[in-house]
């Protein structure tokens, strides 16, 4: 819907109330930075409704809400458009190349062709709408560290698995058992598809939940993880360090990603309060990846 800036807040509130996940407000292309001539012009407000949900009712409610607003001044008509997932996904798929990570890992988007070399460890991936393409520095660093620190036969916990990329990499690198958790049901679905795509179903189980909520299942598996990998954000990592420590083997290894330069100090402080011993910090731009070890160390 195209609206003037003065109506932006009122209309975006209605869009956020009935739409999925939030609201998008677009301004004009083709302006130079610092050019303020667009002020006072119109903006386009968008939201998305999932056709799987009760979208007809939601659209009706949105229209009713807008109708109410019309009393305070004319509004342009609401436009709707049906969008297939492929349509917008195609935009970024073009920029998702096959790429090498670390010494032997190759991340292969499912829509690209590749003939692997003998030494290659190939991860077949379609991230869909979940996190983890291996292109972002945080994921790439986690993959590199996995390749270094994972030992064949390890039991691995992947917290916030997203597309499942790290869990699958762990399985391909020789882990005996991998538990991949994510609180997002969409990520769980995508991760399961990718696990099947790589034929590692017997090694990797993808479960919806976090350490707190899925503890029953974790303990049933009677696992004390040899290696925990968590590519999240510094706030969430700091919060989960306690449960992670309890879930890990007392001599387990830990790879933490998604931490910014600014968030590093807080994570380090939290880690040290749990007796976690830092082995190294890897940097890429503003991002930091921590490799650590639990329990008994020369310092412990």
């Amino acid at each position, binding site marked *: 819907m195209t609206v003037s800036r003065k109506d932006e807040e009122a209309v975006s509130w209605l869009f956020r109330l009935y739409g999925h996940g939030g609201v998008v407000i677009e301004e004009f292309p083709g302006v130079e930075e610092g050019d303020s001539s667009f002020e006072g012009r119109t903006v386009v407000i968008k939201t998305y409704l999932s056709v799987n949900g009760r979208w007809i009712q939601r659209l009706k409610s949105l229209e009713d809400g807008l109708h109410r*607003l019309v009393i305070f001044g004319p509004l342009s008509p609401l436009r709707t458009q049906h969008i297939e997932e492929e349509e*917008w996904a195609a935009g970024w798929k073009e920029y998702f190349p096959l790429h090498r990570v670390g010494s032997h890992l190759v991340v292969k988007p499912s829509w690209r062709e590749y003939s692997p070399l003998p030494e290659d460890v190939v991860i077949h991936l379609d991230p869909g709408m979940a*996190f983890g393409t291996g292109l972002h520095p945080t994921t790439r660093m986690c993959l590199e560290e996995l390749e270094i620190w994972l030992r064949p036969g390890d039991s691995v916990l992947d917290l916030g698995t997203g597309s499942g990329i790290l869990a699958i990499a762990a399985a391909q690198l020789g882990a005996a058992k991998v538990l991949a958790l994510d609180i997002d049901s969409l990520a769980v679905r995508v991760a399961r598809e990718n696990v099947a795509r790589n034929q590692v179903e017997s090694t990797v189980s993808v479960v919806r939940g976090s350490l707190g909520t899925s503890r029953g299942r974790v303990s049933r598996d009677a696992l004390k993880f040899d290696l925990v990998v968590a590519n999240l954000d510094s706030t969430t990592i700091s919060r989960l360090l306690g449960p992670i420590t309890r879930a890990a083997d007392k001599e387990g290894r830990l790879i933490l990603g998604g931490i910014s330069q600014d968030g590093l100090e807080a994570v380090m402080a939290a880690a040290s309060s749990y007796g976690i011993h830092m082995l190294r910090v890897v940097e890429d731009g503003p991002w930091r990846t921590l490799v650590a070890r639990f329990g008994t160390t020369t310092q412990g």
Partner: protein
Amino acid sequence: MAKKVKAIVRLQLQAGKATPAPPVGPALGQHGVNIMAFCKEYNERTAPQAGFVVPAEITIYEDRSFIFVTKTPPTADLIKRALTIEKGSSDQKQKIVGKLSQDKVLEIAKVKMKDLNCDTVESAVHMVEGTARSMGVQVD
């Protein structure tokens, strides 16, 4: 020399909860922006404000690079906070969920002024009143 701006996109999202699903995916994907990079940075910056809607204004350049800044919460959220109501009325005609005093309207208008490029306090006040009405909130 200033880089050529391709688009300016504002997203109203739950702090720390950006994912590549809609609306973020389609909104940024159409401009070729690295969706993961945005989500990761947004979540890392806003996770401490979990539970609030934190808008982000993303400037996308012709070369697909982007920068973003986070903004003040949406007017509707400031109104809700002022009235301590959970959500607006689902039926604005039938139900009035609260009343907002002129003082509160002015207070919110002043908070929002710089983000909205409103020229005058009056225009910001009108904007706040309009949003309040859309929520089923009466202005006294």
